[in-house]
Every structure is written in structure tokens, then in C-alpha cells.
């Protein structure tokens, strides 16, 4: 298994083991970028449990996730293994109520604060 396969296998494992999975810069407690912080804030407001990976810890992951999703920026949110979007799309969906609906239709527990 070459390096790229190794990275995409890691990505798949993360996505498969978390209904809601956020690839971000930093951590939910210490986000290192405004866009990542914004998505964490939204997920916390909706009150959904989510897994996260700090892509700053590995250049391979930081580039690998962009290749995996064919999306050029971080953060990236996945719900039930499907790529949902980055900060702009998640913000738009949150403001229109679509994000809550997406979690409900996917049977994901939410606890809006």
C-alpha cells in the first residue's frame, strides 16, 4: 500500500466511524482558523456529536483530504460518509435550516442550544 492509499484509508476509517466527521485546522477546543472555528460553532449550536481531525498535524492528511473530496479548502464536513461542504455551504445550510433537516433525516441526534 503506497503512501496515498495509506492516507485515504485513514480518511475512510475516520469517515466510516463517525456519522458526523469534521476535517479542520486545529481542534474543536482550539480551532486554528476562522472558517474551521465557524463550523465548530455551528455544530455546537445544533448540538450534534462529531468526530474531528486536525489536518495541521499531518501534511499528508491536509493534502490527502483535498484529493479525496476533490475540494480545495479546509474545513470539510462529512455526514454519513457523504461530503456536505466547507464553511460557506455549512453556514448557508445552518441559516436556512437545511443542516438540522439533514441531521434529522439521517437519524442523527441533535440538541440545539
Amino acid at each position, binding site marked *: 500500500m503506497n503512501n496515498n492509499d495509506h492516507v485515504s484509508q485513514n480518511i475512510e476509517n475516520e469517515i466510516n466511524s463517525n456519522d458526523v466527521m469534521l476535517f479542520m485546522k486545529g481542534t474543536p477546543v482550539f480551532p486554528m482558523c476562522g472558517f474551521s472555528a465557524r463550523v465548530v460553532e455551528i455544530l455546537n449550536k445544533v448540538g450534534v456529536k462529531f468526530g474531528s481531525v486536525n489536518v495541521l498535524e499531518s501534511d499528508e492528511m491536509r493534502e490527502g483530504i483535498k484529493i479525496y473530496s476533490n475540494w480545495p479548502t479546509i474545513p470539510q464536513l462529512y455526514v454519513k460518509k457523504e461530503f456536505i461542504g466547507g464553511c460557506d*455551504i455549512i453556514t448557508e445550510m445552518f441559516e436556512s435550516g437545511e443542516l438540522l433537516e439533514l441531521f434529522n433525516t439521517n437519524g442523527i441526534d441533535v440538541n440545539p442550544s
Partner: protein
Amino acid sequence: MPMTVKQIEQFIKEAIPDATVEIEDLKGDGDHYSATVTSKSFTGKTRVEQHKMVYDAFNGKMGSDLHALKLKTVSE
């Protein structure tokens, strides 16, 4: 190397000829912009697909030369 408003508009229009593009420079550093792109070619596409069309217009420069582009896509 940061980008100018003109360059951003040019990239998008070359890839999406019928697009109308409104760009706002958020920080004046050539690296943080917001853009609203309107085009018929977005019709029937998901938001992710629409945004990918715009990102692809930058031929790999999105996320490198251009750090942040707050994007809103509108299909007529």
C-alpha cells in the same frame, strides 16, 4: 502571490462565460474575498457541484494563491 479582484473575475468568467460576478475584498490583503456568482449553468446542480465549478476555474490556485473565497452561488 495574492490575487486582484480583476483576476478573480477573469478566472471565473473564463470557466463560466455567462456568469455575473460580484466580488468584495474582505480584508484588503488580496487573500480574503467574498464572491457571489450567478449563472444558468448552476441550475439543477447541488451547492457542492456549483462551488466546485467556481473553485475549478482557478486551476489549482484556490486554497494556495487564493487563501479564502467566501462563495455564494446563484442559479437564475
